[in-house]
C-alpha cells in the first residue's frame, strides 16, 4: 500500500459557524504502488483540497494520512518538504513553468533542494532521457514563452517525474489544452506510470480521461464514491 487516508475531514472556516464549508467529511482512500486513480466531481467539491492534503501542501483538520507506511502527522515541515521533493510529483492545470528558466532548467528545478550529488546527476541524465522521449530535447534551451501549451504541460509532467516520485498528483492537467494535446499529455503520464511504476491520482472533469485510470471516484458531499475499477 502506497497511500492510505483514514477519516480525513477538512472544513473552511468563514468566521461564522453557519457559513463554514465542510469540504471533506471522514474521507478514506487507499492506493497501491503503480496504481492510477481518477477523481471526478463538480467544481468546489473539494477535489483540489484532497489532492493538496495528499501532497502535504495542505493539512486536514482530522484523520490520518499514511504514505509508504509512514504516518505523516508527525513529520516536520522539513521532512514534509523532503518527502514532497523525493516521493511526490505535482502536475497542475497550468504548467507553472518558471518563465525565466529554460525547459531543461524548469525540469531540473525540483533537484535544487537535493543534497545528494549522485542523485542529482542521475536526475540530470533522466531529464535528458525524458526530454528526448517526449520530443522536447531540441527545445531544451528555450524559454517557456516560446513553447506551445502542450509542450509546456509536457515539460511540467517531466518536471513532476524528474525525482522518480512514487506518487504523481495531477490536478486537471489537461484543462487548458485542446483535445489532441490533452490526450498526448495523458498518454505520456500513463506511459511514465507504466515505465516507472509511479502511482497516479488525477483530478479531472473529463470522464473519458477518468476512464483511462485503474479506479475512478466521484467526490461529493465531502465523501468519495467509487464509480468503477478498470483493468487496463
Amino acid at each position, binding site marked *: 500500500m502506497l497511500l492510505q487516508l483514514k477519516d480525513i475531514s477538512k472544513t473552511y472556516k468563514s468566521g461564522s459557524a453557519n457559513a463554514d464549508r465542510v469540504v471533506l467529511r471522514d474521507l478514506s482512500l487507499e492506493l497501491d504502488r503503480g496504481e492510477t486513480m481518477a477523481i471526478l466531481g463538480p467544481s468546489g467539491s473539494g477535489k*483540489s483540497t484532497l489532492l*493538496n492534503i495528499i*501532497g502535504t*501542501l*495542505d493539512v486536514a483538520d482530522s484523520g490520518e494520512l499514511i504514505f509508504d507506511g509512514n504516518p505523516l502527522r508527525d513529520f516536520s*515541515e*522539513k521532512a514534509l*518538504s*523532503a*518527502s*514532497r*521533493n*523525493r516521493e511526490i*510529483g*505535482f502536475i*497542475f*492545470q*497550468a504548467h*507553472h513553468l*518558471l*518563465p*525565466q*528558466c*529554460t525547459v*531543461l*532548467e524548469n525540469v*531540473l*528545478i*525540483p533537484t*535544487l*533542494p537535493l543534497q545528494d550529488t549522485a542523485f542529482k546527476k542521475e536526475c*540530470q541524465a533522466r531529464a535528458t532521457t525524458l526530454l528526448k522521449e517526449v520530443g522536447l530535447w531540441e527545445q531544451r*534551451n528555450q*524559454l*517557456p*514563452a*516560446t513553447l506551445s501549451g502542450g509542450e509546456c504541460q509536457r515539460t511540467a509532467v517531466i*518536471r*513532476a517525474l524528474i*525525482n522518480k516520485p512514487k506518487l504523481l498528483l495531477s*490536478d*486537471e492537467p489537461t*484543462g*487548458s489544452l485542446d483535445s489532441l494535446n490533452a490526450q498526448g499529455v495523458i498518454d505520456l503520464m500513463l506511459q511514465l506510470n507504466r515505465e516507472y511504476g509511479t502511482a497516479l491520482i488525477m483530478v479531472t472533469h473529463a470522464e473519458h480521461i477518468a476512464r483511462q485510470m485503474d479506479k475512478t471516484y466521484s467526490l461529493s458531499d465531502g465523501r468519495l464514491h467509487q464509480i468503477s475499477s478498470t483493468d487496463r
Partner: protein
Amino acid sequence: MNLFRLLLRSVRYHRHSHFALMAGIAISSMVITGALIIGDSVKASLESLVKQRLGNTAYSFEGNDRLFRASLGDSLEKRLKIHYTPVMLLNGFASSQGGNIKVNGVQITGIDGRFDNFLNSGASGSPPTDNTAIISSNLAARLQIVVGDEILLRLEKAGPIPKNAPFVSDQDNVVSLRVAVSHIAADYELFEHFNLKNTQLPPYNIFVNLSYLNGEMELQNRANRLLVAEKGRRSPAEVERELANSWDTDDLGLQITPSHDSLWWEVRSDRVFLDSITVLAAKSIYPEVTEILTYMANSIKFHGNETPYSFVTAGSFDDDLTENEILINRWLADDLNAQPGDTLDLFYYSIGPLRELSEQQRSFVIKDIVDFIGDFNNPDLMPSLPGLSDAGSCREWEAGVPVDLGKIRDKDEAYWKTYRGTPKAFINYETGKSLWQNRYGNATILRIPADRLSINELKSELQKKLPPESQGIRLVPVRDGGLAAARSGVDFSQLFLGLSFFLIIAAIILTALLYTLHLEKRKSEVGTLKALGFSQSNILKMALAEGMIIGILGVLTGAILAIYYNKLVFYALNTMWFDIVRTPALHEKINPGTMVLGMSISLMLSLIILWYNTSKFLRKNSISLQKGIQQVRSQSKKRIYPIAAVAFIAIATGSFVYSWGANDLNPGLFFATAILLMAGILTLFTGWLRQIPASKNYILSMAGLVAKSTRRNPARSTRIVLLFAVGSFIVIAIGLNKKDLGEELNSPMSGTGGADFYMETSVPVLHDLNNPDVQVQRAFDIPMDFLQFRALDGDDASCLNLNRVVAPGILGVPSETMKGRFTFITSTEELDLADPWGSLGKILPGNVIPAVMDQTVIQWGLGRKIGDTLVYRDESGAELRLKLIGGLANSVFQGKVLIDQHFLQKHFPTSGGSNVFLVNSHDPSAEISKEELLRIFRTEGPELTLAADRLALFNQVENTYLSIFMILGGLALILGTIGLGISLARTILDRRKEIAILRATGFEKKHIISMFITEHMALLAMGTLTGTLAAFIAIWPSLHKGIIQASLPTALTIIGLILLNGIVWTTFITRMSLGKSVISELREE
C-alpha cells in the same frame, strides 16, 4: 459608456496603485517646489535685511577711511534736495562691569540729528548727546547692560596722519570713551541693524554723538562717510558731481599758506608727507613747483663731536649743491667744530612697515656754513608732527622713534627753545628724496610762486586736480550693491535643488517603478484593449489622460507638502543648520508664481515618466501583453548595452583623468565622473540582466536560479539598483567629504598654518611683535612667535556670508615668513609650486598683483575660478587688479584675499600696523597663553580664538551643507528602500505561482525566503557597490590632491548601515509576504 467614463472608472478602480503613484509624484513635486520656495524665502529675507541695515541710505560717499568735512554734503540738501548725513564709522571694542565683560568687533558710529532722515519708516529717535550712546540689543545682551548703565569704548583714534608714518608718535593711538547707554535699539530700528557691509550677520552697534566723537579725537567737523538718501530723480552722477564741486583743499587735508618771505604759496598736508599724486597735481598747475623734504637725523657726527636729533631739509636752496654736499648752519658748525670742506656723517632711521628701525649713515662734505637768515632760519620747514611740533622741550618729544634723552644737552634744549625745529643742515632735494622718500610721500612742502596765481586760484586748481576719486573716495551705491549681493548671493533654490538632485532622481525612479508596476498589473487590460482594436496612440492618450489626473493630484499634494517642507527647512535653518545662515532674520515667503513653476516642472516630469513608460510598455505586442508572457529581446538590441556601457565608462575615465590632472577643482567633473561611471556600470548590468545564458552545459544551481529570477524583470531590477546606486553614491561621497579636524592641525601645512591662535584686533598693532625689545616693552611673560598681517576693511567672502561678495577684504601677508605654511590645492602657471608664497611678491604683466585665496571661497563665495582677476580701487583711486594665482585648502584666512604686504603698503599706504595675527605660544597650555595674549593686547581689543577652532567654524559650515546633502541623500535612500520594498512585495505577488510550484516540488519555506532575500540583496548590493565605487573614484582626485582626508571607517560604516537597512527590510517584507499560504495559487484562476 464612453472614454471619459472608462477613464474615471479606471482611476477609481485602480485607486490603490494610483495612490502610490500619486505619492511618488507628490514627493518629487514637494522637493522641487519646496526648493524653489526656500530660495525665494532666503532671497526675500536677505533683500529685506538690506533695507533693515541701510534704512533710507542709497549711497555712501567713502574711501579708505579718509576724513573730510562733515558739512561736505550741505549742497546736496540745498541744491539737489537730497538728504545726507555725515557719519564717523570706526571699529573698536566695548566693556562693561568694570572691564569684566568685553565685546570686540564693535561698530562705533558717530551721528548727528541728520541721521534721523535715514531711519526706517515708522522709527524715530533722537541722536545721542555727549557721553551717551545708543546700542543694539545684541550688544546690550552681550554686555549685560540696561539703559542708564555705563560702558567703556576703546577705539582706534581717527585722524589724517597715517599711523606708521615716520616720526608720528605711537602714543595716544587709542581713544577711550565712557558713555551711558541712553537707548537700546529694538528690532525694527536702524540702530539695531545699521551696517554698510554686505552681510546678513548682525553687527554690534554703538551710536555716539558725532561732534562729541570729533572732540574726543581732537578733530573738528570731520566724518569718514556721508550717507546719501534715496536718489529720487537725481542720478548718482549728479550727486557725485555735486559732492565733487563742494570738495576743497580742507577735505584734501592740504594747508596753503604764504611762505615766511611771502614769495611762495606753501602747500602742506595734514598727513605730514605729500603723496606723489598731490605733487603731480601741483606740477600740472605749475611745472617748476619746488619740493622740500624735511627729515630728522638721529645724529650728525664730525671728528668725535656729535649733535643729536636735528632736522635736515632737502630742497633747492643752493643750485650748485651737489649730491654729496651739505650746508650747515652756524650753530651746528660751532657745535661740531666743523669747517667748509670737512666731511661729516649723518645718521638717520629708515622706518619699515611695522616701525622696524634701521639706522642708516651718509657722509656729506660741508660746502658752506649758513647764517640764520631766510630759509636757513625758518622753523616752518619742519613738518607739523603731533608730539614733536607742540613739545615745550626736547624732553617732551614723542617722536615715534626711540629718543635717547641722555644725549640731549642743555644747548640742544636752548636751540629748541630759540629756533624750534629750524633745520640745522640742508642738502640737495634729489639726494634727500633718495634717502627719505617713503610710501607716504616724498615731500613735506610744495612751493609755488605767489606771483603766478592767487591763493584762491591755487586752491581751486588743486580741488579740480585732486577730486575725491583721486583720494579713493567714491559714491558707493550701497543699496543697489546690497540688493545685488543679496540677489546673487547663495541661491538656496539652486542649492536645495542641487542638494536634492539625487532625491529628485530617486523620487522620479520610484515614480517610474511604481508606474511600471501599475502598468504590469494592467497588462491584460491593455492587451485586451489592443486586441479589441484600440490603436496604440489611443491607449497612450488614455493612459496619459489618466496619468494627468493622477499627476495633477500628485503635484497639488506636493505643493501643499512643499509649504510644510519649507517650514521644516526653515525650522532646521534656525536651529540645527543655523551655522550656514547665522541670522534669525530669515522669514518664509511663498510666491504664487514660484508655486506654479514648481508644480509645472513636477507635472511635466511626471508626464514624461508616464509617457515614456507607457510607450515602452505598449511597444510589446498585444498577444504577449494579454498572455502576460515575456518577450524575447532581439540580439541586436542586446548588443547596444555593452557598446553604450563602454562609451559611458570611457567618457567617465576621460573626466577622471582630466580632474586628476587639472589645477582647478571642478565639481562638475566630480559629478560627471560619478554619473557617467554609474551609467556605465548600470548599463553593463542591464545588458547582463537581459542576456539569456543558454549554453548546452549550463547546469542550474540555487544561485543560478536567483540570478535568473533577477533577470526575470530587468527594468524593475535595474531601477532598484539605480535607486540604491544614487542614494549610496551621495551619502558615501558626502560622508567622505565631511571635514574632520585631526592632529595634522599642528602641521604648518594645515589650514591653521601650524599656529596655536588666530587673533584679530580692533586697533592695529604698530610694532613688530617678534622684536625682543617690543616683547619686553609689552611685558610678555611667555615668549611667543607672531605672524602679522594687515587686513583692509572689506566684505567677508567666507562661507559665513550668504551674500555674493564682489570685492572681499584684502589681507597683506608677509610672504617671506609664510614659506612652508598652508597647502595650495589649485594654481595657475604663475604660482611657483616650489615657493608658492614667494610668487606673491612678483608683480605680473600689466601691473597685476598676484593673489591667493581659499579655493572654496573662490569657487563658491565669489563664484570665480582660479586665474580670474578681482578689481579694486587703491588709496589713490587707481584701479588695482588682483589675479587669483592659487587656491588654498581650507584655512583660517577664509573670506579674505591674500596679497604680499609690500603691495598692500604700496597701494594702501595709510593703513598701518597689523590687525590679524597667527600666534604660536611657547607655553603648552592654551588657557595660560590665551590669558597672556588677552592681557598683552587688552588695549587693542583682541578677538582671540584657537586657530583650530576658527578652522572648525568654517568646516562646520561646510559640514552643515554636507549634512543637508547627506540628509537629502538619506531620503533618497529611504525612497530606494521604499522602492525595494514595493518591488519585493510586488515581485512576490507576481510570483506566487512560482513560489507555490517551488513549495509543491519540495522547496522549504526557508529556501524560498532565502532565495528572495538573496535576489533582492544582490540588487541592493549591486546598487550600493555601484554608488560606492562611483563615489570613491570621483573623489579620488581630491584625495590625491590632499583636499580631503577621507575616513575609510566612516565610509564603511555608511555602507554597512545601507546594507543593514536593506537586509532588515527585505527580510521583513519577504517574511510578511510569504506568510500566507500560496497553495491556492496553484489552481488556475
